[in-house]
């Protein structure tokens, strides 16, 4: 029997009354477990297997197949309820960036949710995503300017990313990096930051989870 702290990243209905849960654990990397009967009304697991909360889990690892979740206890939420839409989208992004076999998912998601919780309202999502990208080592993979389209022409300037072809003009890199740092309420800056993040994800053949409709 193994035991660890965990964050839920995916939950897929399995058979009649169970879940297959994907979790980032602090010391055991990303794991997938069967939560038998967890969708039943009377299950002791019910209400505990939620994202955005610190979980304590115990499980029996599978000898060949998936392990089986024996117990789960839900502790405090990592960010306030008003940030849960952002938190869920960031968790979905983390599930893509840290697939099974990776070790850093827990620390990365924990840090990203923490950033999201502290950031100014409109930039909470992009700030959390940026932390995630930094932890995944792809924050520097933005290889195209979202203003002029130049590829491989981006350099890290004093105030964030700058384009060597057009970057001398307006102050957009600074505005966008303020959004990525979670320090702006400016809608335009958030939009720029989101465009940058979308290009980073696209470079990894991933789609950025959408926040709005």
């Amino acid at each position, binding site marked *: 029997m193994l035991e660890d702290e965990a964050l839920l990243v995916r939950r897929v209905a399995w058979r009649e009354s169970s879940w297959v849960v994907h979790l980032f654990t602090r010391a055991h990397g990303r794991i997938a477990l069967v939560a038998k009967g967890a969708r039943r009304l009377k299950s002791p697991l019910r209400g505990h297997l939620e994202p955005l909360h610190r979980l304590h889990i115990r499980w029996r690892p599978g000898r060949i197949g998936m392990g089986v979740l024996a117990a789960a206890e839900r502790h405090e939420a990592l960010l306030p309820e008003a940030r849960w839409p952002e938190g*869920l989208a960031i968790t979905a992004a983390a599930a893509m960036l840290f697939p099974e076999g990776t070790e850093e998912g827990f620390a990365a998601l924990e840090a990203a949710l923490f950033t999201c919780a502290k950031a100014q309202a409109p930039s909470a999502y992009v700030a959390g995503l940026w932390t995630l990208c930094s932890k995944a080592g792809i924050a520097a993979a933005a290889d195209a300017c979202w203003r002029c389209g130049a590829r491989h022409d981006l350099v890290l300037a004093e105030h964030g990313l700058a384009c060597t072809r057009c970057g001398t003009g307006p102050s957009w890199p600074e505005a966008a990096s303020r959004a990525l740092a979670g320090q702006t309420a400016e809608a335009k800056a958030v939009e720029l930051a989101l465009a940058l993040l979308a290009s980073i994800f696209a470079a990894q053949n991933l789609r950025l989870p*959408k926040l709005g409709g």
Partner: protein
Amino acid sequence: MIPGSPKALARAVEAFATLPGIGPKSALRLALAILERGEEGARALAQAITGLVEEVRFCRRCGGFSEGELCAICTNPHRDAALVCVVEQPVDVLVMERAQAFSGTYHVLHGRLDPLGGVDASKLRLAELDARVARGVRELILATSATVDGEATAHFLARRYAPSGVRITRLARGVPEGGELEYLDEFTLRRALSERVAWTSDETAAS
């Protein structure tokens, strides 16, 4: 399936077994019961099943179950169209109606935000709700699930419609009717405590 059993029986068992809560044993029991009832009983059952998919539609306005373009609630002049209760699934409307305590109308999202499962806001019935709010809604009651997904959906909706000036409320959560504290889970109890309500004073004339 038992070898040598008729093809039609095997087919029926297979079909029943795809339904929720029905295993192969129950499926066989159901098939045998229908065989026993004879042709007339089977035909009535078949009709009920095809009628279900042919006649039950979704209301164009609220997205709830309906037999016509609009449902019986949306077309009822005694229901308050400016008071809208937002729920996740059509069945939630039936559940709310069972309480017989609501005189407003509904809006069914046909889902809830679930980014982990790949459901973003574009998959919810929001265009119709946007239009209803624009036409004039006094109050939106957010009756999404008390799960992280449901809560996130409520926050998302509140953010979307707050600028329109509509009053936004959330279904209360706490100790259920007939619920003894001893049997409550810690989440419900914590919520009941943090959202406790002021005591509306008893009649002081009890002297």
